């Protein structure tokens, strides 16, 4: 029996109708996937996944196997009309499903890596009251498309850390669709060092009262590298909370993109959302496209959003140099300081240190 036959057929039709996005598609204006892929196109290969040391208490199912358990059938392919997500569903029978059962607090990190070219699906289910830290690894490849679904039950808590390494040639896209029940919490941090085209797209549905999503991200981009984080945050019900903080540093001909749409649905009264995206450009040819957006249909909501693009503060730079810190080091220090509040949001201390170390290395090159 193949999983979700009807939904795969729908996905196939959707992808056939829309095709690989070009920059003429509004959502893909700053990330021309079709031209980044060139002749090769998106292919129909199945990409690989790998879980290192599955923590005790986490259940794993290989999606290419027969007889999926009930929790997979219930949660798989529930996603929306996202075109690349549809492509991964249409083109790949491979992938992984993971479940943390009710009330289980998993202390060990769950390390999930995606490698190789092609399309792959992933499903992560945290049942009510469960908690987990997911560390997602992004292997380099000429092209990969990951369709990820995350379902958080009542009061479940997921920390998600994803680091996308630097590469001039890789084209890496991922769509994560996250659903949160009442009182669930999703914290995610996306560090990106950019590739030919790199896009992390998130659709987050706050479906239960008091559900919370906190997103943060940093990118350090050089050369011709590109990094795009596109988010769609849906406050579907009352008293939901979301925060987003994205910081980018771009030099050379690099391009940083943040598109974030927050929707507060009718009746989602008392919701609170905060969105901030900032970029520092280190050269004339570097580019940042920051587009926070709000759509409010409810009453009594608190929504703030802001975006700012600038360059390094000359007064600060002079102050540090006047105290003996050489220019390149002073620039590095200021860039790191600029990124720090976003990095500080990574709850897991080891992961936070890892991201910091990688940022410092990247900043040394770019400063």
């Amino acid at each position: 029996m193949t999983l979700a036959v009807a939904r795969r057929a729908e996905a196939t039709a959707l992808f056939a109708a829309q095709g690989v996005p070009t920059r003429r598609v509004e959502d893909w204006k700053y990330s021309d996937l079709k031209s980044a892929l060139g002749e090769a196109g998106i292919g129909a290969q199945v990409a690989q996944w790998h879980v290192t040391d599955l923590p005790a208490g986490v259940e794993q199912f290989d999606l290419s196997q027969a007889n999926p358990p009930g929790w997979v059938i219930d949660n798989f392919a529930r996603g929306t009309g996202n075109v690349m997500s549809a492509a991964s569903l249409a083109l790949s029978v491979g992938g992984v499903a993971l479940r943390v059962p009710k009330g289980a607090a998993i202390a060990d990190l769950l390390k999930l890596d995606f490698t190789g070219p092609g399309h792959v699906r992933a499903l992560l289910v945290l049942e009510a009251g469960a908690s987990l830290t997911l560390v997602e690894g992004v292997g380099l490849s000429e092209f990969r498309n990951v369709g990820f679904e995350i379902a958080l039950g009542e009061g479940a808590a997921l920390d998600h850390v994803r680091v996308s390494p630097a590469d001039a040639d890789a084209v890496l896209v991922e769509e994560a669709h996250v659903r949160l029940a009442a009182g669930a919490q999703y914290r995610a941090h996306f560090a990106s060092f950019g590739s030919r085209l790199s896009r992390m797209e998130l659709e987050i549905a706050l479906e239960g009262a008091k559900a919370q999503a906190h997103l943060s991200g940093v990118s350090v981009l050089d050369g011709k590298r590109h990094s795009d984080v596109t988010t769609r945050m849906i406050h579907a019900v009352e008293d939901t909370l979301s925060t987003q903080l994205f910081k980018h540093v771009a030099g050379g001909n690099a391009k940083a993109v943040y598109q974030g749409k927050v929707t507060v649905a009718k009746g989602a009264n008392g919701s609170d959302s905060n969105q901030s995206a900032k970029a520092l450009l280190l050269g004339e040819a570097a580019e940042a496209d920051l587009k926070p957006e709000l759509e409010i249909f409810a009453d009594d909501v608190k929504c703030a959003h802001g975006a700012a693009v600038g360059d390094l503060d000359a007064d600060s730079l002079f102050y540090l140099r006047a105290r003996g810190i050489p220019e390149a080091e002073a620039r590095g220090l200021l860039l790191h300081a600029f990124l720090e509040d976003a990095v500080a949001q990574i709850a897991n201390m080891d992961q936070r240190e890892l991201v910091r170390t990688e940022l410092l290395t990247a900043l040394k090159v770019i400063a």
Partner: protein
Amino acid sequence: MLEIKNLHVSVGDKPILKGLTLSIQPGQVHAIMGPNGSGKSTLSYVLAGRAGYDITEGSITYNGEDLTALPPEERAAKGVFLAMQYPVEIPGVTTMTFLKTALNSQRRTRGESDLDAIGVLKLVRAKAKTLNVSEEMLKRALNVGFSGGEKKRLEILQMALFEPRLAILDETDSGLDIDALKLVAEGVNLLRSPERAMLVITHYQRLLDYIVPDRIHVLAKGRIVAEGGKELALELEAKGYEHILKDVA
């Protein structure tokens, strides 16, 4: 130690210093007073090497070397220190990290070895205590949320830590309460030595009661228009700048 000759400086196209001449010997403390906007901070920035200040004429020699040829960080390593009138707030960099980085950067530029983290910590703590800079302030982001007086005390803490050969204090006394003023003056007096020189910019005679200068210069309209001993400060306090400026064409 410091020889400034016929210095002309413009910001953009605007001439600000117009033929300033000043000479400071090792061991001396000089004070500069002068009306708002006369060019005192401009002089201090030019000495520290800030970009955007064009020297159109004249020279600055420091220990026999052309100071203007050096980037700010090398001036610092060679012992030039400017306590700024408006210290900059830098979110995301803790004060302690900054102090450690600055101290070791200067040492490295001079070809000395780094001090280890514990060594720096001990040194900073010892100096911080005498200047009433709390442990909590050292943990906070540099100057962020510091009161005016706290910022000034941190400038003096840096001076004590870096032990410069030429210290320039740009209105370090402004905004200080009496106790803080005494602390700052003590910090300065502790550093006074036959090898060091200081240039103290101030609006108030009061500071000069505590830091007694060898010479006072009055800067107005980009030039030194009067000079004298410490009694000049008393005269200015009593009569203001009007009567001096009247004599200057």
